[in-house]
């Protein structure tokens, strides 16, 4: 898939991704208009379906609110590439099916507005604007299995089905 990079810094926290004042809702269509509002109030206006967020270390730190990856996904972002992710955001993204890639080199080699090509299956990230090709860190083995099953909801369905 191809899209435009929206670049942000380190420690993008869940309070700026989706402030608690909007968290009386958990619906993507109600959260998405406020995605990243307190960090970049132009993001929602500028982002197109299939674009990417590229950020520094500890992306998604702070609250456990699943509303954060839901808002990002709802706003149209197809993937978040970061140097590292905060652990609850990491789990939540896997669970709701927001693709995330950990790749510091790609983050360093990408600027705001660059066109990227991403292959989620291989983890390959290519910067079409300024060149450069990188491979994101693969998911640990057990987590890959959960992803391949279609996420945690599918895992639970399969497991409870098997138990019956």
């Amino acid at each position: 898939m191809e899209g435009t990079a929206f670049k942000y810094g380190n420690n993008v926290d869940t309070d700026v991704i989706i402030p608690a004042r909007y968290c009386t809702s958990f619906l993507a269509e109600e959260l998405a208009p406020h995605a990243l509002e307190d960090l970049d109030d132009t993001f929602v206006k500028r982002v197109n379906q299939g674009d990417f967020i590229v950020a520094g270390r500890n992306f998604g730190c702070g609250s456990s609110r699943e509303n954060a990856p839901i808002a990002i996904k709802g706003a149209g972002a197809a993937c978040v590439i970061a140097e590292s992710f905060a652990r609850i955001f990491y789990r939540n993204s896997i669970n709701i099916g927001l693709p995330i890639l950990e790749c510091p080199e790609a983050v360093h080699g990408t600027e705001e507005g660059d066109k990227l090509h991403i292959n989620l299956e291989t983890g390959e990230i290519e910067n079409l604007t300024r060149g450069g090709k990188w491979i994101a860190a693969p998911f640990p083995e057990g987590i890959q299995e959960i992803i391949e099953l279609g996420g945690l909801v599918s895992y639970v369905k399969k497991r409870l089905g098997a138990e019956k």
Partner: protein
Amino acid sequence: MAMTIAEKIFAAHSGKESVKPGDLIFAKLDRILGTDVTCSLSIKVFEEMGVEKVHNPDQLVLVNDHFVPAKDIKAAQLSKNMREFGQQQGVKNYFEVGRSGICHTVLPENGLAKPGDLIVGADSHTCTYGAVGAVASGIGSTDMAAAWAIGELWFRVPSTIRVEITGDLQEWVGAKDVILYIISQLGVEGAIYKILEFHGSTIENMSMDGRFTIANMAVEAGAKSGVIPADDTTLAFMDQVGVKDAQPIEADPDAEYEKIIEIDVSELKPQVAKPYLPSNAVDVDEVAGTRIDQVAIGSCTNGRIEDFEMAYRILKGKKIHPLVRVVIMPSSDKIYAELIDNGFAREFVAAGATIAPSTCGLCIGGHMGVLAEDEVGLYTTNRNFVGRNGHPSSQVFLSGPAVAAASAIAGEIVSPK
């Protein structure tokens, strides 16, 4: 194989002799905490999973705390959804407004967190229960739905950082100053995916109230959990809350740590974390003179009796600065009642403070004290990110209750000495 406290707890809950960092395990859960703000989404996901009954209703703890008393119609609906789900599922540990408080005080004071437990909660400060020698970690709503359904969750066994804290604290310096200082040394991502295991004479001499403050903020360094070994202080607390069979888990002497950090706090000054990161702590003198509009004393971080006692000693017989608003936030309804019984409440109100119901509202910028454009807060809470407490241009400084109370009188940040 030698193990840390967390490794022992993960091994015991996954039916294994031993585990090591990096292992992916499914582990049985002792408690699964949900709140009004995170349960509704979990209920929706739970229904999507096609599950009718939770695995074991006694694992569930449901607490009304974030947007209560309901701040608006949508918030009222969130509580209603959780209330009805709890009734349908036969959840005994359901905590209603007025008989509740902030979850991270409610669970321990009701004996629902004990040494050796593995607890998850759809709230990032679930790590607070590490104070009793448990592994406790925040999760999202889909994770919680899965945990309700199967009684277990997946974990990647994290490596552990051992933090040795030694030295007697100076007057007006408390647990909050210690943990703010530690986070400033580690950074907000210093313990990402890891466990912090706290040891040393400072911790051993610390009350349970102080230990809850330390464990509460482990997540602000990115940690999965912050664990304090259970000792006689812990067992006395467990006895007091009705848990008679608590068994401390100790780390093996030759357990492997990713690193060991040694911190001497004997010269530590009161700390203040500047906006917009909890890791921005400096000595209070460096920010002295900063004007403030609102002070908040309480929350799941500093809303226990020892915290209010510190504030009381400073505020008693004094008047809060005319340009400052002070909100007192007891972290449970039981603590609220204690503030009335011991006379603290009367003194706080006489000094010009208001006492809020026990809720997370102010701390998350939801209700009960939201900041306007460009306003400055001095809070004893745990986070000061952009926009967390109100308008995105507002600023929050984090401190312990002594700095907060002294500053409330002065109208600007001051050292309590």
